[in-house]
């Protein structure tokens, strides 16, 4: 069963492009990644799901129901974590969370305290006094306290320290094991790869590819940098290598293919230093999708 289905979903803000002809579906139990650079239309898509904005053309259905007609009913089962959280100032964290919980038909108080405990959230503090990262933690608890069937995350890790990010990812995995479907929007490829089953790539408002994460990883380029004195860079000119550059005794290139082939080749040389990195999203856009 599809949890999210969109059909030629299009949004223009006046003349400005939001998204164009986005058609995708997210199956039940998936962790679906949605990646693209800033301004590609990720947040626009999510706002359409939540009927904060209305489509210019096309439609979106969640749990098989139209997002606009059944908005409030659908949102009973959606947990949303925005990229930047803004809450009513002058409220205490607990008051805000209980306020949020009061809109759901089920009793959320047990889960509320569990989550707050897990995220090490001080419930007695006022929202205005919280740091950016702590506000984000309130957002996580608020988004998950009603144990939603669909979790929508919009760049969720910004502002969280690495330890909290780890806890957060574990939490999302737990929710996923419980049966929740996750729609995960991000511009950080690494975290999407770590968590997601499938991924859609959006660029300038249009979906340019939807792929299984395994395929993407198999096809993925590595960026390799080698420091060595007087080495001839043409030695690395094998199948799957591109963009070879040599600068100040450092050779760098992109590699796509079996990682063992290239490591064997490198180990046959005497080198001073070696870095192997995933390509950044920008580099993928520039080289992988050209």
């Amino acid at each position, binding site marked *: 069963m599809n949890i999210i289905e969109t059909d030629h979903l299009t949004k223009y803000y006046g003349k400005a492009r939001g998204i164009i002809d986005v058609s995708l579906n997210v199956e039940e139990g998936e962790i679906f990644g949605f990646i693209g650079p800033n301004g590609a239309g990720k947040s626009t898509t999510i706002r359409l799901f*939540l009927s*904060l904005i209305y489509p210019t053309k096309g439609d979106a259905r969640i749990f098989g129901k139209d997002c606009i007609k059944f908005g*409030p009913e659908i*949102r*009973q089962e959606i947990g949303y974590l925005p990229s930047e959280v*803004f809450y*009513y100032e002058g409220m205490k964290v607990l008051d805000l969370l209980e306020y949020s919980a009061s*809109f759901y038909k089920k009793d959320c108080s047990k889960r509320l305290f569990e989550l707050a405990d897990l995220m090490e959230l001080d419930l007695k503090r006022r929202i205005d006094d919280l740091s950016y990262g702590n506000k984000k933690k309130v957002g996580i608890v608020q988004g998950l306290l009603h144990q939603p069937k669909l979790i929508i995350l919009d760049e969720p890790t910004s502002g969280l320290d690495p330890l909290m990010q780890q806890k957060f990812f574990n939490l999302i995995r737990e929710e996923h094991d419980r049966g929740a479907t996750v729609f995960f929007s991000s511009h950080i490829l690494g975290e999407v790869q770590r968590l997601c089953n499938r991924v859609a790539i959006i660029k300038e408002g249009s979906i340019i590819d939807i792929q299984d994460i395994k395929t993407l990883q198999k096809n993925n380029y590595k960026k390799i940098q080698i420091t060595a004195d007087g080495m001839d860079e043409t030695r690395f000119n094998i199948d799957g290598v591109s963009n070879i550059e040599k600068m100040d005794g450092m050779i760098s290139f992109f590699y796509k293919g079996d990682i063992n082939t290239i490591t064997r080749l490198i180990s046959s040389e005497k080198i001073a230093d070696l870095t192997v990195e995933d390509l950044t999203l920008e580099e993928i856009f520039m080289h992988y999708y050209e």
Partner: protein
Amino acid sequence: MNIFFRELRSNLKSLLIWSGILILFNFVGFSKFSAFYENPQLLTVLDSMPPALISSLNMNAFNLTTVTGFFGIMIIYFNLILSISAAMWGSDIISKEERDRTVEFSLTLPVTRGRLVTAKIAAVVVNCIVLLLVTWGSTVIFAQKYQPDSEFYRFVSITMLTVLLLQMIFMALGVFLGCAMKKHKQSGSIAVSILLVSYFISIITGLSKDLDFLKYFTPFKYFEPAVLLRESKLEPTFVGLSLVLIAVSIAGAYLAYSKRDLYS
């Protein structure tokens, strides 16, 4: 009900400030009145003032040396203060969600936009009524010193009813602008601007009989304090017109808000 109570709490500070302003204003007003009270000299002073000024301040209809007459003058200021507060509350309670970027919280909860607007209007109406009661109560208390008669109480009661209508008209206008305007930051100042313009129209209307038709365009002219004192009843035409204005603004607000993109 949760939205309603939250809004009441978040508006409490503003309500207290406005109440304080009104009590202080009433207090200062009555202190000044103590100099006019049963003072025949004042009448000769008033006779020497230009008639246009006298009429714009409603002074020709009232005997300033009585507490009833004095209240008749104060009505202009109550009208202005209470309707300005209503207009500002009305627009602010809607537009603040976009200004503070809390729409992404409040409207991603399982509520309809209509329910949110309803709860917010209810909260503003309660605020308006409380402020009206503060005005009413402080007027009656400060007046005690001057042994008001039953005519005074009747006049104050019927006047407060007209102030309530005025509050509701401008509250509804504020809510409508808050809901309908894309440039939500300006909705409050535009609501107050419209209010002030209609107040100035009400002054112009009083200057000449030829401009009498203008009274339909300004709620400040719907109920003349002098007529209220004389007849102790509300003109049904203008009660009807007020209710229509309120209904149209509120209906427009729901319609505009349900169709609008909300993002910050």
